[in-house]
């Protein structure tokens, strides 16, 4: 006799508000700065004011004599600590030794030279002012193309050509592509330095317990477990005696996908002084010493037939690495190269990446990490090609898209695109915005002398990092589901969400699978003493790699629940659904909660079954996932001032299945803000001496809410076959899609004036000058 089961409403796919928000918006979340330990001291770092200099001497006597100063350390005092780790490797890569405090030379403004530790932060800052460093200033070089020129100052004297590496990627037959080409378009395109500017700056509290020989380190990081492995190695402490905690993390965007000098330095100091020590990065320091993003000079050549068929793409990419390699610095431009083909069906590519040292802070992963640069490049080149051929930019894209029946699609760069329907996404965007009508409006505007532009970007990205062989430190993820005796559920994820919302979306997933209320679920992360080893949060991987790990752990739980259900219901014919095991013969039920209690009370156990109800899963993805989308921006340029107004912004993203569309939209909005920031406003500008000219919010134009257009979000859904949830990843999509849409829009507006290309950011003066140069 089968019973009727009322299905509980499923939560996956619903717009559910974030569980993490109440603590954030009531100011009760705990960030590193909120952590106060008994006897805690404070550190302030003395930093180089010069882009390049030799250190002739450091006099700490005045600082050390200041009442309240407990210790002052210089480079000479740092013994037994390993250098900052670069996890990336490339053939022939030159890796400068990156000491946690400068030794005899400084390489960029902000380079740490000494550290003052005092009983409070004010005294430490006063002490830092009293440290006297005798610098012999040498010539700096901050522009990567100048750094490659003959006779340029050497950033590292041992490598006078300033080349950290040259990386080649070739696919197909480029010679043939260019021989067959009826048209070749060339363009130099830059992707400027950007300052990530997470709302929370970095910070560290280190607490050494001598008796235990153990170190607890609270740090604002995206990768607590990797940080622990690296820091244990640097500091020579057993890994199981290092606990790294990422408390509330106020944004990272890749800038906290790193292990910085200050983290090991605080561990070192706490051990030396036998007291906890705190360092909180100032906003000024955040600008100067936390990694920057982008920093490309790209020389593109695209070969095509007159009918618009793209045959091949050549790229010479000069990457501004800065003075050192941070965790992934050299790897970032190689990601650009991987994504060079975009969504297009051509098989010939030829790329040369020249990693270049400069006297600047290192570049590294910043939201999109390599893919925004690639996408901006290919999307600009496709528009330039369309202009050259007098084709509509939408038409040329449709013509070259990889088609739905070509998946899985092996690219010329060795990737395997998982799934997609690129034409459908673009068509939806065109329909949403009313493309044909807009082009008519544009024609009318042009007759009136108005500069109206329509910019399309059809982006693809690789995310869900990623298969372990393709990553420096493992690309799997872990999850533990711990059902408590009461039936409440605690989830441990190896990812380290800091704004992405997995406390909500993972609870949705588990609630559906186990048939319990979302309120019965707590998602924990970010503490290496609680959570099994995990890889962390970056590369849009939380849902797409952490999600499947959780999904499979939940299946294990369900299996075990069923065993207990069968035992308790004394039947083999039992299903587990909607939070209950039901005997399909008798209709008798036993709830998930009762089963959880029985599993722990263990009065009786099913055959071959242990007590308890806990499952851990480590899940290895077989491939990346490849989201895609079409962003269209309508803009108008004021001829008189060069000012740009965004009239409309339509984003159609395909990120596979969605666990929570509200979270998805938040990610798209935030990403679009950062992408528009690059297109229009942001620029980390160094002068020739190595001073960061845009080192404060007074000079560095961060996008603000009032500067944002309304982003009209919608979606198509092409599930990914790579994982059981069919999800792809959305953390970076908005950043990747928005930038070229914005620039293409402005360049489309300026087309009647014969202006082909302008580099980002498109500041009003730059546009005004171009208009006047053209007039």
């Amino acid at each position, binding site marked *: 006799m089968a019973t009727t089961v009322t299905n509980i409403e499923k939560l996956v796919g619903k717009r559910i508000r974030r569980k993490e928000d109440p603590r954030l918006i009531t100011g009760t979340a705990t960030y590193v700065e909120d952590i106060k330990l008994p006897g805690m001291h404070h550190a302030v770092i003395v930093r180089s004011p010069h882009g390049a200099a030799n250190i002739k001497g450091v006099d700490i006597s005045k600082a050390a004599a200041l009442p309240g100063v407990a210790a002052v350390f210089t480079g000479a005092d740092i013994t037994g600590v390993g250098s900052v780790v670069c996890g990336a490797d490339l053939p022939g890569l030159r890796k400068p030794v990156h000491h946690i405090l400068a030794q005899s030379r400084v390489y960029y403004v902000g380079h740490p030279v000494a550290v003052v530790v005092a009983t409070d932060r*004010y005294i430490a*800052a006063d002490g830092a002012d009293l440290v006297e460093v005798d610098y012999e200033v040498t010539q700096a070089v901050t522009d990567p193309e100048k750094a490659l020129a003959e006779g340029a100052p050497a950033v590292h004297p041992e490598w006078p050509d300033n080349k950290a590496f040259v990386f080649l990627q070739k696919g197909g037959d480029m010679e043939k592509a260019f021989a067959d080409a009826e048209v070749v378009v060339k363009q130099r395109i830059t992707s400027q330095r950007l300052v990530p500017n997470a709302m929370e700056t970095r910070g560290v509290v280190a607490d050494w317990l001598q008796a235990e020989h153990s170190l607890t380190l609270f740090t604002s990081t995206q990768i607590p477990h990797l940080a622990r492995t690296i820091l244990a190695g640097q500091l020579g402490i057993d890994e199981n005696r290092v606990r790294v905690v990422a408390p509330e993390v106020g944004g990272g965007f890749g800038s906290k996908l790193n292990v910085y000098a200050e983290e090991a330095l605080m561990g070192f100091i706490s051990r030396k002084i036998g007291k906890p020590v705190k360092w909180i990065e*100032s906003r000024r320091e955040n600008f100067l010493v936390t990694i920057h993003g982008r920093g490309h000079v790209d020389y593109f050549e695209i070969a095509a037939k007159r009918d618009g068929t793209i045959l091949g793409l050549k790229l010479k990419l000069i990457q501004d690495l800065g003075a050192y390699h941070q965790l992934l610095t050299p790897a970032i431009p190689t990601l650009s190269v991987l994504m060079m083909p975009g969504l297009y069906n051509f098989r010939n590519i030829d790329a040369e990446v020249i990693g270049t040292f400069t006297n600047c802070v290192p570049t590294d992963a910043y939201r999109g990490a390599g893919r925004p640069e690639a996408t901006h490049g290919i999307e600009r080149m496709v528009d330039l090609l369309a202009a050259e051929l007098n084709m509509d930019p939408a038409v040329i894209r449709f013509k070259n898209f990889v088609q739905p029946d070509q998946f899985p699609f092996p690219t010329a760069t060795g990737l395997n695109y998982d799934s997609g329907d690129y034409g459908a996404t673009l068509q939806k965007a065109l329909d949403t915005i009313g493309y044909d009508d807009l082009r008519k409006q544009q024609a009318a505007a042009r007759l009136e002398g108005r500069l109206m532009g329509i910019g399309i970007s059809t982006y693809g990205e690789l995310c869900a990092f990623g298969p372990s062989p393709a990553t420096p430190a493992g690309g799997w993820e872990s999850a533990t589901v711990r059902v408590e005796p009461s039936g409440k559920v605690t989830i441990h994820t190896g990812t380290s969400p800091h704004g992405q919302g997995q406390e909500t979306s993972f609870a949705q997933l588990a609630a559906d699978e186990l048939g319990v209320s979302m309120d019965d679920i707590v998602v924990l992360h970010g503490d290496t003493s609680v959570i099994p080893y995990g890889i962390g949060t970056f590369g849009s991987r939380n849902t797409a790699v952490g999600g499947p790990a959780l999904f499979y752990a939940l299946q294990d739980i369900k299996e075990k629940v069923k065993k207990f259900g069968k035992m308790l219901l004394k039947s083999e014919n039992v299903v587990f659904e909607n939070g209950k095991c039901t005997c399909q013969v008798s209709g008798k039920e036993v709830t998930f909660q009762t089963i959880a209690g029985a599993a722990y009370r263990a009065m009786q156990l099913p055959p071959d079954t242990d007590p308890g109800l806990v499952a851990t899963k480590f899940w290895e993805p077989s491939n990346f996932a490849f989201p895609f989308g079409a962003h269209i921006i309508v803009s108008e340029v004021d001829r008189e*001032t060069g000012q740009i107004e965004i009239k409309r912004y339509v984003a159609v993203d395909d990120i596979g299945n969605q666990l929570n569309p509200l979270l998805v939209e938040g990610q798209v909005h935030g990403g679009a803000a950062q992408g528009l920031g690059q297109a229009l*406003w942001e620029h980390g500008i160094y002068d020739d001496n190595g001073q960061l000219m845009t080192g404060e*919010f*007074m*000079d560095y134009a961060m996008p603000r809410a009032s500067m944002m257009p309304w982003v009209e979000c919608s979606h198509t859904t092409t599930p990914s076959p790579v994982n059981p949830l069919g999800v792809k990843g959305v953390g970076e999509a908005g950043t990747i899609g928005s930038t070229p849409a914005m620039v293409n829009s402005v360049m489309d507006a300026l087309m009647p004036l014969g202006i082909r290309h302008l580099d980002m950011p498109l500041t009003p003066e730059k546009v005004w000058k171009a208009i006047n140069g053209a007039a």
Partner: protein
Amino acid sequence: MIANAFEYTAPQSLDEALGLIAGGAKPLSGGMSLIPMMKLRLAAPEHLVDLARLKELNYIREENGELHIGAAVTHYEVESSPLLLGKCPLLAETAAHIGDIQVRNMGTLGGSVAHADPASDYPAALQALEAGIVLRSAGGARTVSAKDFFIDTFTTALEPGEIVSEIVVPVEPGLTGTSYQKCKHQASGFAVVGIAVRARRENGVVSLIRVGVTGLSGSSYRAENVEAALQGVEPTGEAIRAAAGLVAHSVDASADMQASSEYRKHLASVYTAKAIHAALSRSA
């Protein structure tokens, strides 16, 4: 981002404040300019005297055909005061362009005027309004015109021991129209250029025009050449464009990463024309 140590006094009366300032203490009003400089250790005053809480500097009132605004009135109060919105909308409109709401809730009229940041907004309006600025010290008070008060970048007619205590603006008949037009710096939000215009049209010609300029150079100023070109003239689009084109004439224009001096001068003429059009359209 950590200030040096300093002493702080919240005085009970203006006299007490002026006494301390005479002794070398530094006034603190909204702290929106001073505190950031202290945090960057670009300023290290030893003793701050808080003016923002003094009742004697917190008022907006009309007296004998003049509006009197205490120095400690916040930007938000200026922006939202019914009295100012009715009788001196230019000042209210200008205040609304300052920074963001947090800054406007803390920052004060007196603090901004005394600070004389060359990219601040009020000076343009005060120039166009021909406002009086009351300077007070332990020894007494004097009134200086806006034109004489703003001398150069961060430099004013204030003498040691003096504070800005009040701004005085004459109340005008409803015939006058005003407008403040600002090109915002994309990072700081300050004025790349800001143009305040006060104008009246009678019998088809311009019978009164005052043009205040901020942001363009080291100090705010009155563009008297623009005024002269339009005084008594029929304000056609052509006449306004030509007059506005004079605004930066022989001015040593500032340059920064946001705008070269050439571009700034160009913007000044564009925004001057906008402000003149807007002011005249509001003139009865």
